C-alpha cells in the first residue's frame, strides 16, 4: 500500500492554508454533527428500556422530543458543512486552476505544440474538478469519521467490553480490507481518464475544423474515427467500474458480517442475562452506525482513487519545465533597438518534444543528427537601430523561426542574439514582449469585449489610446458601427470581422505598446491590395523611430527596407544594404526582383 501522503499533504497545506477561517468553520460543523450522531442512539436505548419496563409517559415523550431535536440540529450542521465545504473546495481548486494555467502559460511553445487546447481544458479544469471533493471533504471527512468510529467503539467498550472488543476487531478488519483494495482501481481510473482526454482532444480539433471536414466530404471519415475511439473506450470504462464494484461488494459483505457479529454477541449476552433488550438494540444500532463512517471513508477513498490519478497528472504537469532559461535582470534601453545575431543555430527537435509528461500519446519523431535538422544554421548579422530589415525566403526557410527566437519563444542551441547590446537571455523576461512587437499570420481573438481583445485585458490602457490606435489604422469607421463600441463582445466568429480586419486589430495591439523593435511576419499576407495601401501609412508610423523586421515572400512588402536578407533552408544566402544588392546584378535579390517583377508592377 502506497499512499503518497506527502504529496497529498503538500497539496492540501498549500491550498487550504490560504483559507484557515473557512476550514475551521467547516471542521466545527462536521465534528458537531458527529458528536450528535453518537448521542442519539443512547436516547433510543433509553426509550426502549423505559417503554418495556412500563416507564412514565412523560419521560418517554421527553425522550422522543429530545431525539427529534437532536436530529434537527444534526441537519442544520450538515447544511452548514456543505456550505463551508463547497466554498473551501472551490476556492482551493480555483487557486489550483489559476496556478496550473499560469504554469502552462509560462512553458515554452514546444510544450503547447504537443498538446491541444481541449486536452489542457481537461487537465486544468477536469482534473481540478476531480480534486474539488478531495479538498473540501477528504481530509475532514476521513478525519471526522475516524473520530466517529473511535467514539462509537469507546461507548461500546463502556457498555460491555466483550461487545466493544468484537466490534473493534471487526472495524479494524473492515477498514484495512477496504484500504488494501484502494490502490486496485487507480491504474484503471488513470486509463479511463486518459482516453477521455484523448477523446476531448479529438473533439476539440475536429470541431475547430468543421468547415474543412464538411466541404471536403469527410464527415463519415470523422465519424469512423469517433467509433474507433468508442471501441477502445468501452473496455476501459468497464474495467474501471468493475474495480469500483469490487470495493462496493466487499463493503456490503463486511457489513453483513458486522451485523452477524452484533447479533451473535447480543444473543449470547442476553442469554447470559448480562444486558437488557434496550442494550441489545443499542448494540445492533451502533453496528449500523459504524456503517456510515466506514462507508464514508470508503467513498472518500474512491474519490481519492480518482483524485490520485489527477494528483499525479497535475504533479507531472507542474514538473514540466520550460526549456527557456529564466531571464536575467537587464532592462532594454528606450528607443529603437539594434539586433545582432552571432553564429545562431536552432532546431525544434533537440530534446524538444521529449519533455512532455509520460502520457504523451503520440510518439514524436526522434531527431536524426543530420544537418537538415537545423531550422536555422549559423546566422550572423547585425541590424543597426532604427533600420528596417526585409527578410525574404521560401516557405519553410526559417523566417518565422528567426522572429520567434527574437521574442524568446525558443532559445537557440548555439550562438547569441543581442538586442541593443544585451543578450536575449539576460533580459528581464517581462521586459521582452513589451519592447518587441510581433504581428503574425494568425490573429487570435478572445470571446470578450473589443477592448479586452485590443488591450489583452490590461485595464491600465485608457480608451483614448485605444481610439487613437484605431484611428491611425482606419478602423474608426468599423468601431462606430459596433452597437456598444469598445464594449461590444467579439465572438470567436467575430461578427463579420474579416481576416484582414482581424489583422488590423493585431496592428492596433502593437500600437498600444511602445516597442523598440517591430516584427511583421507576413503581416499583410491576407490584406487585399487596397487595404494594404491603407495600412502602409500606418506601418510607416509604426516603424518611425523603431527598428523593424518585415518578413515577406512578396517583394512589394519589403519596399521600405533598408537592408535585405534572403534565407534558404535555414541558411543566410544573402545579407546587405538594399541599394547595393539591387544594383549588383549578380545578387539573388536583383534576380528575384526580375522574376517577381510581374507581380510588383501590374
Amino acid at each position, binding site marked *: 500500500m502506497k499512499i503518497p501522503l506527502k504529496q497529498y499533504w503538500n497539496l492540501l497545506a498549500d491550498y487550504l492554508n490560504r483559507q484557515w477561517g473557512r476550514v475551521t468553520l467547516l471542521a466545527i460543523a462536521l465534528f458537531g454533527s458527529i458528536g450528535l450522531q453518537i448521542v442519539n442512539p443512547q436516547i433510543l436505548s433509553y426509550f426502549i428500556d423505559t417503554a418495556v419496563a412500563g416507564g412514565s409517559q412523560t419521560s418517554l415523550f421527553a425522550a422522543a422530543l429530545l431525539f427529534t431535536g437532536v436530529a434537527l440540529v444534526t441537519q442544520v450542521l450538515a447544511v452548514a458543512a456543505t456550505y463551508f465545504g463547497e466554498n473551501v473546495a472551490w476556492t482551493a481548486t480555483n487557486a489550483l486552476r489559476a496556478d496550473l494555467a499560469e504554469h502552462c502559460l509560462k512553458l515554452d511553445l514546444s510544450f503547447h505544440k504537443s498538446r491541444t487546447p481541449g486536452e489542457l481544458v481537461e487537465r486544468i479544469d477536469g482534473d481540478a474538478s476531480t480534486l474539488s471533493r478531495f479538498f473540501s471533504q477528504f481530509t475532514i471527512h476521513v478525519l471526522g469519521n475516524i473520530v466517529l468510529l473511535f467514539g462509537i467503539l469507546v461507548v461500546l467498550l463502556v457498555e460491555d467490553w466483550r461487545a466493544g472488543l468484537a466490534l473493534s476487531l471487526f472495524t479494524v478488519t473492515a477498514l484495512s480490507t477496504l484500504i488494501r483494495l484502494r490502490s486496485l482501481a487507480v491504474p484503471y481510473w488513470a486509463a479511463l481518464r486518459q482516453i477521455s482526454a484523448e477523446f476531448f482532444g479529438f473533439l476539440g480539433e475536429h470541431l475547430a475544423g468543421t468547415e474543412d471536414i464538411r466541404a471536403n466530404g469527410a464527415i463519415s471519415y470523422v465519424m*469512423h474515427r469517433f467509433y474507433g475511439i468508442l471501441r477502445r473506450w468501452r473496455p476501459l470504462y468497464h474495467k474501471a467500474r468493475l474495480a469500483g464494484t469490487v470495493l462496493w461488494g466487499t463493503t456490503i459483505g463486511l457489513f453483513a458480517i458486522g451485523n452477524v457479529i452484533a447479533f451473535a454477541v447480543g444473543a449470547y449476552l442476553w442469554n447470559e442475562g448480562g444486558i437488557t433488550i434496550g442494550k441489545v438494540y443499542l448494540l445492533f444500532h451502533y453496528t449500523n452506525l459504524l456503517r456510515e463512517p466506514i462507508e464514508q471513508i470508503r467513498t472518500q477513498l474512491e474519490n481519492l482513487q480518482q483524485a490520485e490519478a489527477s494528483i499525479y497528472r497535475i504533479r507531472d504537469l507542474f514538473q514540466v519545465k520550460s526549456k527557456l532559461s529564466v531571464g536575467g535582470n537587464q532592462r532594454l534601453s528606450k528607443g529603437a533597438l539594434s539586433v545582432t545575431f552571432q553564429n545562431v543555430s536552432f532546431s525544434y527537435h533537440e530534446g524538444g518534444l521529449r519533455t512532455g509528461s509520460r502520457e504523451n500519446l503520440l510518439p514524436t519523431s526522434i531527431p536524426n543528427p543530420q544537418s537538415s535538422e537545423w531550422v536555422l544554421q549559423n546566422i550572423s548579422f547585425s541590424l543597426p537601430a532604427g533600420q528596417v530589415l526585409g527578410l525574404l525566403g521560401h516557405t519553410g526557410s526559417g523566417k518565422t523561426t528567426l522572429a520567434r527566437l527574437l521574442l524568446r519563444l525558443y532559445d537557440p542551441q548555439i550562438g547569441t542574439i543581442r538586442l541593443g547590446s544585451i543578450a536575449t537571455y539576460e533580459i528581464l523576461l517581462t521586459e521582452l514582449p513589451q519592447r518587441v512587437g510581433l504581428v503574425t499570420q494568425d490573429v487570435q481573438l478572445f470571446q470578450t469585449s473589443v477592448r479586452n481583445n485590443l488591450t489583452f485585458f490590461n485595464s491600465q490602457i485608457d480608451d483614448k489610446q485605444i481610439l487613437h490606435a484605431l484611428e491611425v489604422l482606419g478602423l474608426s469607421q468599423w468601431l462606430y458601427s459596433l452597437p456598444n463600441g469598445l464594449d461590444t463582445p467579439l465572438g470567436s466568429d467575430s461578427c463579420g470581422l474579416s481576416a484582414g480586419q482581424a489583422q488590423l486589430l493585431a496592428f492596433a495591439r502593437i500600437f498600444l505598446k511602445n516597442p523598440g523593435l517591430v516584427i511583421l511576419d507576413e503581416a499583410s499576407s491576407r490584406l487585399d491590395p487596397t487595404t494594404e495601401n491603407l495600412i502602409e501609412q500606418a506601418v510607416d508610423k509604426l516603424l518611425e523611430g523603431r527598428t523593424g523586421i518585415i518578413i515577406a515572400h512578396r517583394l512589394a512588402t519589403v519596399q521600405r527596407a533598408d537592408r535585405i536578407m534572403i534565407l534558404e533552408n535555414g541558411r543566410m544566402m544573402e545579407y546587405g544594404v538594399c541599394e547595393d544588392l539591387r544594383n549588383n546584378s549578380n545578387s539573388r535579390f536583383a534576380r528575384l526582383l526580375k522574376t517577381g517583377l510581374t507581380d510588383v508592377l501590374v
Partner: protein
Amino acid sequence: MAATAKMGGWQFLWRMISYAPKLYLIDGFFWILIEGLPVIPGLIIREFFNTLTGSSQLSLSPWSLVALLLVAEVGRIAALFVGRLTKTEHRFLMSSLLRRNLLERLLFRPGAQPLAASGETLQTVSPGEVISYFRDDAHQIEEIIAWTSQIVGAGLFALGSIAILLSVNVRITLFIFLPLIAMLVVVQQAETRLKWYRRASRQATQQVTGLIGEIFSSTQAIKVAGAETEVLDYFRKINEQRRQMMVKDQLLTALVKSVFQNIVSIGTGGILLLSSTSMQVSAGTLTVGDFALFVYYLSFVTYFLSFLGESIALFKQTEVSFERLEVLLSNTPAGESGSDGVKEDSSFSSSALVAHNPLYLNGFCDRKQPLPPIEKPYRDDSTCLQELAAFNLTYHYPGTHWGISDVNLKIARGSLTVITGRIGSGKTTLLRVLLGLLPLQAGTIYWNNRKVDDPANFFVPPRSAYTPQVPKFFSTSLRENILLGLEKPDLDLQNAITMAVFERDVADLDDGLETVVGPRGVRLSGGQLQRAAAARMFVHQPELLIFDDLSSALDVETEQTLWSRLFAARKVSTENDAAVTNWMPTFLVVSHRPWVLRRADHIIVLKDGKVEAQGKYKNLLNTCAEIQL
C-alpha cells in the same frame, strides 16, 4: 429562437431508453433485486428480537436467523456484480449515443460556428465551450437514465415494505406518509430556483472552459503580447464568478436534501411518540422486534424518498441539459433560414439528438463488428459540371449589416473565376454561402440548371472541394489528413501532392507521408499547410475547386508553379479526351494576385457585400476603381 414544438424531458428520456430496451430491462431486473433485497434482513431482524423477547410465532433459534441474514446478503452481492456490469454497459451506450448524435449534427449543420442561447441573445460558442456539452450534459443525462431503473427498484420495495408495515401497525405506518406529502411540496417549490441556479452555474463553467481553450489556442499571441498576468487575472475573475454560482447551486441542492432527511427524522420522533403508548401496554401490540422493523424500514423508505427527491431534482437539471443541447442543435447562425435555404425546425433537431443510430461497438464475447464503411464519393453523369449559376445570394451575420446581398454568379465548365475586393467586402462569406457553410437567407443556386436545395450536402466531393484561408489539420498522419478516409491508390495521392507543389516538403519530412501533423504533431508552416490542403482537394479530382486566397502564405514562385500545374492538367483533358485523367476542373478562387487576375476568365469585384463590377481583367482595369490600385 426556434423553440416551438419542444420535446418534453420525459419524451427525450423515453427515446433514449428505448434505444437498448432489452439491456435496460435486464439491468432494471437486477437493480430491483439490489435495491429490494434489503427488505428480507428487516424481517429477519424483527424475528431475532421477537425470539429474544419470546414473542415470536416462528420457532427458529437466533443462530439460524443469523445464518439466514448472511445468505440474504450474499445474494445481494451477487446481484450487485451483475447489475453493475449491465449498468456500466447501458451508461456507456447512453452517453455515447448522445455524443455521437451531437458530433454528427455539429458536423452536418451549416454554419461552422455553433450557437447557444444566452439570455435573450444568441451567442457563438467556442470549441472549448462545446466540449462542456459533450462532457457535462452528456454525463448528466447518462446519470438520470441510470437512476430510473434504480428508482423503480427502490420504489417497488418501498411499497412492499409499507405493505408489511401496514400489516403490523396501521396507525404508525400512515404516520410515515405525512412527510411524503410535505416533501413533494418542498421539491415543487425549490424546482424553479434549482433550475435557474443550475443553468447559471453551467454557463459559468462554460465560460471557464471556453477561456482555457482560448488561452491555449493563443498561447503564442499572449506570450508575444506579454499579457500573461492580465489574462490570468481575467481567468481568476471568471473563476470567482463560477465559484459563487456553484456554491449557490450546491447549497440549494443540499438544503433540499436536508429538508428531506429532516422530515424523516421528525417522522422517527413521531414513531417513538406513537409507539411509546403501544409498547407500554403490556398486552404487547407492538413488540421490540416490530419497533426494530419500523426503524429499519423507515430508513429504507427514507432512502427511497430522498433518492426520489434527488432524482426529481436531477431530472429538472437534466431538462436544462436537454434544453441547452436542443438550442445548440436547432439554431442556425442566421436564426431563421430563408425560404429556399435548408429548413431546420427544432423538432427535427430534437429528435436528431436522441435518434437511434448504431454505435458499431464490438459484441460482448469479442465478436468483432465491422466499422461502418467510409462513404465513397458518388459520381454519375449529373456530377459533371456544365454550368454553375447562383442568383441573389444573400446572407447577413445575425444582428449586423455585414454579409453579402444579391450576388449573382455564372461559372462555365473549365473556367477560372476570381473573386476579388478589399477586406470585409464579403469574398469569404460569398464562398461560404455558396458552399452551404452559412445558410442562405435568400437566393437560389443551380447546378447544370437543376436547383440545389441543400447546398451544404451538395457541395462536397466529387462535385466540389474547398480550402479555407487557414486550413485545419488533425493530429494524425499527413497521409490521413490528405485522404480523409478516401481510398485512392498511392499514385493518385502522389499526383495530387505533386500538383499542389508539396512533393519536396513531404520528402523532407522525417517520416514522409506518415509524419503526424496537426495540433499534436509536426509543425508545418503556413505555406505548407495551404499546399497540403490543396493536395487534400486535388486527390478527389472534384469538378469545382474552390480556394479562399490560396496565395496568402505562398511565395510567388511556388504559387506560379502550382497554377501552371493546374492549368496543365486542364490542358491535357481538353486536348485529349482519352487521357488517363479525364479531369476538367473548374476554378472559383479568391485572389488579389494580378498574375491570377490576368488569367481569369471572369472576375467578380465585391464591395460592401455587393458586386461592384465584373468581367475580364483588361476591361476592369479601365473601368473599376477597386482593381486599379
